[in-house]
């Protein structure tokens, strides 16, 4: 009947600005609002304090943000399922404590064994929480609230049992160097360059593959804009990490190992979520658990997996935490940390209700929180002012995000 052959292919307008406008109008603005907000914050703090945009301070900021980002990533594993784990703050503290204590003068484990133990503690406790949530058929909010208290108790018990007055210092050099050690200048540039070039090449190769299969492609102009932005970010990162940030004759240059670890974690987690079956199943379960079950997915298995991955990621966060603190004490603010972690994820654009989120959301959201704290500390804003300002930013960020996403049509 119809004279024109039906086709689903290539209805994308070729003009990139038309595409961008259509996407914005659909609410598919991605992370644009939050990135604009981030830039506005940076401009504000730089206007108030000239030391904000210095390499030394930005390096500092990146380490502060790494803690929020890693815990935010841990929480995203669960937020994707519509679950939450309130114990992750203290779990990261306990994991870090395990590494500190086992590598101290008394136990004297090698650094890699201490790190492995920290990651094991995180994973096993995560598994346990997940098994409990599924076994008891209770909301994860309640179960992990109990776990949180238990972990706080264990943490105080373990730390105080060392008889050092509630504070244990790191004696292991490698553990210390997670935050305070760094790549050489050359390796920093190689790492940044490889990351940027890899991402650019990947986007073009992917587009080419789609074109060869006659599937819709992203306009080349878009990819070029993205490539330029990535390259600019690379140059900025190189400047931040490779500018001398030492004092007097002491020269400190290069990317801290913690940032390298963070980069690897983001890349690996994103790959897992986007390119593997278990990653796809986490999204499916978060979107419609019953549909996932009918699709033959063993839902409970993947729910436990998410708790274990969250625990593992908190273990990594704990290692960065103790390294930055150069030890562990019995007053870890794990309850606040986990709420900042959720805040980082949500500011970045991850839904609290499951099915929608990305690991880079924690990256952007964690940097926003880091910028707020770092900037306000530079401006010597009082503690109560800091809390009030943070509260305002949380609300504004989430509201803008929510409005921008209403009616969105594209998966993320």
């Amino acid at each position: 009947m119809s004279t024109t052959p039906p086709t689903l292919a290539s209805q994308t307008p070729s003009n990139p600005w038309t595409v961008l406008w259509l996407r914005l109008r659909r609410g598919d603005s991605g992370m644009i609002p939050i990135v604009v907000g981030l830039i506005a914050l940076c401009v504000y703090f730089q206007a108030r304090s000239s030391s904000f945009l210095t390499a030394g301070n930005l390096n500092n900021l990146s380490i502060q943000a790494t803690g929020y980002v890693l815990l935010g990533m841990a929480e995203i594993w669960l937020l994707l399922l519509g679950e939450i784990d309130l114990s992750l703050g203290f779990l990261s503290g306990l994991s870090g404590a395990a590494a500190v204590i086992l590598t101290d003068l008394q136990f004297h484990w090698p650094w890699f064994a201490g790190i492995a133990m920290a990651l094991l503690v995180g994973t096993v406790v995560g598994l346990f929480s997940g098994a409990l949530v599924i076994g008891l058929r209770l909301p994860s909010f309640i179960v992990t609230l109990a776990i949180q208290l238990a972990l706080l108790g264990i943490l105080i018990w373990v730390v105080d049992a060392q008889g050092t007055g509630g504070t244990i210092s790191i004696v292991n050099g490698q553990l210390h160097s997670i935050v305070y050690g760094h790549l050489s200048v050359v390796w920093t540039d190689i790492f940044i360059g490889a990351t940027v070039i890899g991402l650019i090449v990947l986007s073009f190769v992917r587009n080419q593959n789609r074109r060869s299969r006659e599937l819709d492609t992203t306009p080349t102009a878009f990819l070029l804009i993205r490539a330029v932005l990535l390259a600019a970010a690379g140059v900025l990162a190189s400047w931040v990490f490779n500018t001398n940030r030492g004092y007097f004759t002491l020269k400190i240059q290069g990317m801290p190992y913690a940032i390298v670890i963070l980069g690897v974690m983001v890349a690996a987690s994103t790959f897992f979520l986007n390119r593997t079956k278990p990653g796809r199943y986490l999204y499916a379960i978060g979107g419609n658990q019953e549909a996932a079950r009918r699709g033959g997915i063993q839902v409970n298995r993947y729910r436990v997996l998410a708790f274990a991955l969250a625990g593992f990621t908190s273990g990594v966060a704990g290692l960065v935490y103790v390294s930055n603190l150069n030890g562990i004490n019995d007053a870890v603010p794990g309850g606040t940390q986990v709420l900042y972690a959720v805040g980082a994820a949500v500011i970045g654009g991850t839904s609290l209700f499951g099915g929608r989120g990305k690991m880079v959301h924690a990256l952007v959201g964690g940097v926003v929180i880091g910028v707020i704290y770092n900037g306000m500390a530079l401006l010597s804003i009082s503690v109560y002012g800091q809390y009030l300002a943070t509260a305002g930013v949380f609300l504004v960020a989430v509201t803008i995000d929510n409005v921008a996403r209403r009616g969105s049509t594209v998966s993320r």
Partner: protein
Amino acid sequence: MNSPETNRSSHSSSNPEAVGSGESATSTLLRLRGITKSFGAVQALQHVDLDIPAGQVTALIGDNGAGKSTLIKTISGIHPPTSGEVFWDGQEVKIHTPRDAASIGIATVYQDLALCDNLDIVQNMFLGRELTKNGVLDELSMETATKQTLLDLSVHTVKSVRQVVGSLSGGQRQAIAVARAVMRESRLVILDEPTAALGVSQTANVLSLIKTLSSRGIAVIVITHNLADVFSVADNIAVMYLGNLVSQGPIHQYDTTSAVELITTGQSSSVPAQLIPNN
């Protein structure tokens, strides 16, 4: 008084040996004999005999509580029958689980459609059976196959197969759920009230999709309350009344009046007697 349904007259429910090998090339895909289903003391299905011809659309109609849903749940393995026999292509089969049903080529699209709103069309089409290459999701092959399937089914209304399903209209969602069933190489697709929540034009789209399925040799069972749908799309009618299959036959032997009589009273003065099973 000669029924055109040769399969029906070739045996009775007490004579299952007649089924299977040796039978002339009939087009009966699924044959139920004496299917009974009890939930405790309640007999939801009483000795149901039903023939589903290959490549045709069979409308399963009946009032609420007549046993339509129970019947399709026995076929799709959710509630295995208490007693009775099921023949698929003339071979007796046991369907105990939904997986059994899927493995022989029966796909059921329930009213809730079982779609993930946060995933796009391609991801939903392959949910639980994703294609991989070296352990990594093969998005390109899945997207190509999805497009092909939608083209084959003449589903032209979706703009992009990378849209999330949550952004689709009710008719489009129904089409995606059906397309997913078809892509799994199903030979029988069961649709549970596919047009219940749809507007006029979307209903028309779904009905034409049903016709496309049967033109591609796929048998379809449609549960519906809408007699207009029945008479516009079905090749056969099966009427249930209080757990009994009271009448089945080609569509031209029924009209709206007789269908309504059968649905409400279990009998009709205008439908030939032999169409009504004697049980």
